[in-house]
């Protein structure tokens, strides 16, 4: 049985070993760098970086590219928007009725589509190599400077942690309620959309009622265990940036920014 949900790929790799904050910084720099690239050579270098990252992270290519499928509509739209012309004066490639494909436009379309693919695959490496817990912890640390303007960084991170904690519990409970109502003759897959949505009332009502009960118990449990907000809390697994993290963060960011600025 899979022990983690979501996208995380549980293997050991140098990328997995990096601190979540390092990877967040790298992803931010990568996103900016990749957006600034406007030449094919730059894109090739970015692609090489992403490919190297996938290899280093020991993430199967199939899983790393999973996110691209969801983008197919956007990619086709990008290609079409750049390459197709309506009744142009000159036709450089193919003409179908009033529609024509323009060579320069096609090149632009491919360039932008490729950039989107690289951006998505590159940033997804963060969630593929970092557990949700590490992500929340990293996020708390990154957001901590905002506490100066009264942003509740600790509380937001605690909410995310609790949400993560209760996703499997809620999923198990939803399954139980669905089976129980099915056993009482409920059916969830017949009729039109409105009828189907209404069929879920007997599932959603108990699910929410039970979640509220859980929330009540949880509040009592947290208060009993001395929770009083984020201030003054320490962490068992407080992640710290090692010199290696800083080195990777600085060199990596500098490299992607350089590609973005010059190519």
């Amino acid at each position, binding site marked *: 049985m899979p022990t983690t949900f979501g996208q995380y790929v549980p293997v050991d790799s140098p990328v997995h070993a990096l601190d979540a904050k390092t990877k967040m910084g790298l992803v931010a720099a990568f996103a900016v760098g990749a957006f600034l690239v406007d030449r094919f050579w730059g894109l090739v270098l970015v692609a090489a970086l992403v490919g190297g990252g996938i290899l280093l992270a020991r993430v199967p290519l199939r899983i790393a590219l999973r996110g691209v499928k969801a983008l197919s509509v956007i990619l086709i739209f990008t290609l079409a928007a750049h390459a197709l012309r309506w009744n142009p004066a000159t036709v450089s490639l193919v003409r179908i009725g009033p529609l024509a494909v323009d060579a320069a436009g096609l090149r632009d379309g491919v360039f932008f589509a490729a950039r989107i693919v690289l951006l998505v695959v590159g940033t997804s490496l963060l969630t593929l190599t970092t557990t949700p817990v590490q992500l929340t912890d990293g996020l708390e640390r990154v957001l901590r400077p905002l506490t100066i303007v009264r942003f509740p960084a600790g509380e937001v991170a605690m909410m995310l942690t*609790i949400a993560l*904690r209760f996703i499997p519990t809620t999923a198990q409970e939803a399954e139980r309620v669905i089976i129980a109502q099915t056993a009482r003759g409920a059916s969830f897959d017949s009729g039109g959309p409105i009828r189907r949505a209404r069929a879920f009332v007997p599932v959603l009502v108990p699910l929410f009622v039970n979640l509220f009960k859980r929330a009540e118990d949880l509040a009592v449990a947290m208060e009993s265990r*001395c929770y*009083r907000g984020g201030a003054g809390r*320490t962490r*068992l*697994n407080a992640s710290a940036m090692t010199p290696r993290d800083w080195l990777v963060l600085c060199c990596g960011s500098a490299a992607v920014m350089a590609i973005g600025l010059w190519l």
Partner: protein
Amino acid sequence: MRLVYPGAGRAALDGVSLTVAPGQAVALLGPNGSGKSTLARLCNGLLLPTDGRVTVDGMDTRDDDRVWDIRSRVGYVQQNPENQIVGTVVEEDVAFGPENLGIPPAELRTRVDDALRAVGLSGLERREPHLLSEGQKQRLAIAGALALGPGYLLLDEPFAMLDGVGRDEVRAVLEALRSRGVGLLHITHHLADVAEADRAVVLREGRVAFDGTPDDLLGSPEHAGELGIDVPPEARLTAALRGRGFDVPPGALDAEAILDALWR
């Protein structure tokens, strides 16, 4: 831990006095709605008495400055372990309490390791809570309370969601804690759960209806039944045997003990 709570009018609790000493196990019995859970929440300051006072090692629960000291002295374990687990992995859940107190990370590690060892969950530090058995979940909840270094534990029907195996696991942990000097207030409606307690207090409609030993209750199942608590059928068997002139002690609840007494 001392509790004096003379309430007035139609209170959830009315004039209840109760003391739990270190290393002592006190059973708090009573039917549903008798005020047991209210009493538990008064003991660690989640609720404050409208009249009377609750003190923990001399600290009054109404003293705002001591509330965190009191909550770390008095651990609270609820009926459904699933609902009181905060962390996404075992060790982070155990660390939750001491993290709130601002304990430095190095000491957090020792506290977590000690608490997990005390409940027999060492080796499962990185396990996700939803993959534990019910007995393991309840032991995790106890470890979460232990990591605060409590002198007392409030146990609100800790066996309710467990089967025989889980019960035995949790019972062994509680027995070990008691011998280490932790005072236990064990809430239940079933007398069989608390037959080995030092003292039994029965609540009925917010008042103390009985205060004595579990053996006193086991010895007169009729009376215990009238108080609205569950009496093990074995206690009814031994009571009937005593009625027929055999000297079978009320504490004999398993077949071997009953027969040994009968054929002595």
